């Protein structure tokens, strides 16, 4: 199980760097984080030595960039027919699902790690709270994992990458905005507080913002981990069900 997961993981991760896709993704990711942080996020104007403007935009960045990575995970295999090869090799479906997911996740983590000059910049300019930054990075990668698990599952349901992308963005959008003020205000006017909390608790934003405060609450951790596992399980079910059709 471990060995086959590792084999799938290595093949997938290498696959990213065999094509220009990886480099394009990383360049776009770094470019956009830069724009968001310094231009829209008013990094310098705020004159505070923290990375809030940087992390604040991550959910919105991931909303489009992660489905772009996830859309090919299964759809491409279905389209090229290589899925027939993969699923007739002696490995469990879990190995395949987890190996693919981890490779994409690590790839996003590499892109995220390459934003380290931001950290160096604030450290040079002031005295940031490094604990908060570490927690925010952790929260950011957990959240990316959530978006990725959703995208991977939806990619398994179709062989059309564009469809996979669009549906993933929509679903990810729902999981993002359910914690945004615009949605919560709508509920706040009439709904009881428990419903409000329930809606908010489904959102990546709620949990990511909590982590960004520098405290990694077990509940936020459990939220992201269980969300990832749930979507990966759905991913596995879809691949398995498709064997019958």
């Amino acid at each position, binding site marked *: 199980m471990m060995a086959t997961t590792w084999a799938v993981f290595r093949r997938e991760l290498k696959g990213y760097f065999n094509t220009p896709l990886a480099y394009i993704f990383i360049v776009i990711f770094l470019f956009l984080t830069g724009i968001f942080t310094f231009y829209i996020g008013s990094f310098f104007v705020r004159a505070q030595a923290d990375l809030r403007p940087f992390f604040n935009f991550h959910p919105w960045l991931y909303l489009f960039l992660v489905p772009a990575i996830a859309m090919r995970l299964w759809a491409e295999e279905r389209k090229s027919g290589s899925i027939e090869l993969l699923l*007739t090799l002696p*490995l469990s479906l879990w190995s395949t699902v987890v190996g693919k997911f981890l490779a994409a996740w690590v790839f996003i983590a590499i892109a995220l790690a390459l934003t380290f000059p931001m950290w160096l910049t604030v450290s040079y300019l002031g005295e940031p709270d490094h604990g908060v930054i570490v927690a925010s990075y952790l929260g950011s990668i957990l959240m990316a994992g959530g978006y990725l698990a959703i995208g991977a599952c939806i990619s398994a349901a179709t062989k059309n990458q564009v469809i996979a992308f669009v549906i993933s963005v929509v679903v990810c959008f729902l999981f993002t905005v359910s914690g945004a003020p615009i949605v919560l205000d709508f509920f706040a006017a009439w709904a009881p507080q428990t419903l409000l909390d329930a809606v908010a608790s489904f959102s990546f934003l709620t949990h990511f913002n909590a982590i960004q405060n520098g405290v990694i609450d077990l509940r936020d951790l459990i939220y992201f981990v269980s969300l990832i596992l749930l979507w990966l399980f759905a991913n596995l079910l879809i691949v398995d069900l498709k064997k019958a059709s």
Partner: protein
Amino acid sequence: MDWMIEVEGLVKKFGHLSAVDGVSFNVPRGEVLGFLGPNGAGKSTTMKMITGFMTPTAGSVRVVGYDVDEHPIAAKAQIGYLPEGAPAYPDMTPISFLNFIADIRGMDSTTRRRRLEYVIANVHLEEVLEQPIDTLSKGFKRRVGLAQAILHDPPVLILDEPTDGLDPNQKHEVRGLIADMAAEKAIVISTHILEEVEAVCSRAMIIADGRIVADGTPGELEQQSPLYNAVLIDSQNDGVAEALSSLAKVARVEELSGGRFRAYPADGQSIVAEIADLVRLQGWSTSRLSVEPPRLDEVFRNITRPDTTTTGDNHGGAA
């Protein structure tokens, strides 16, 4: 007999359509079974179910004793499979692709080195090992797929159109490779090329509309041809048809254009000696006297499209 593949009552329905409709057969070690059939007959679907890619609607498959549904990983470890169209990962090179397969199949480094050497040499991949599979010709892609299938020296081989897209020399080589492995393994191939069945298969099965409609050695199937042991004769003399018809072993005589006649034997027996005697006795002048060559394609067409007649005078065999 120790069966390597046991297929029992296999059914696959897509909605109302039955792609495979109650297929049962067993394959022992040492047999090369050829699946024949028109496109959409259910050959590939049957293979997809044997290899565990598709879940059957009904029926079961056992590979070297392992039920594919209950013990998929154990069963799949016994199988080498070349899927239709020989899919691979286009961005990988053949050598990294084969190493990936070896990783998944858990091959240790000594076995891996030995087997990689063997398949690369026998499938002739030396010159393209470091090129992305994407950039390879159709023939090389097919050979990469074949290399992948035989890499772990499996007891069961399922090859969906292994020679499709290869040139005649490559076809010959791949058939040679299959023949070399035949004694040790149970091999199932599907093909459109009937000569391939005669060349490599010890057993042929014709599948049409999801059912097995004929099953036997290629020789046995050939005997079902209406042209089996029929004799062609060219003669301008008078009364040829009548004289031929009068022979006891001749069932009927067909007059083709240009003074050519075809005599069909009764019960498929050999009639060429009798006809040769007749020619000598009558003193006919003939420019041709030949037995129709074994024709699997006639059997194939007869069985899979029984409504069409299969005659014609433009494809007589060599004298």
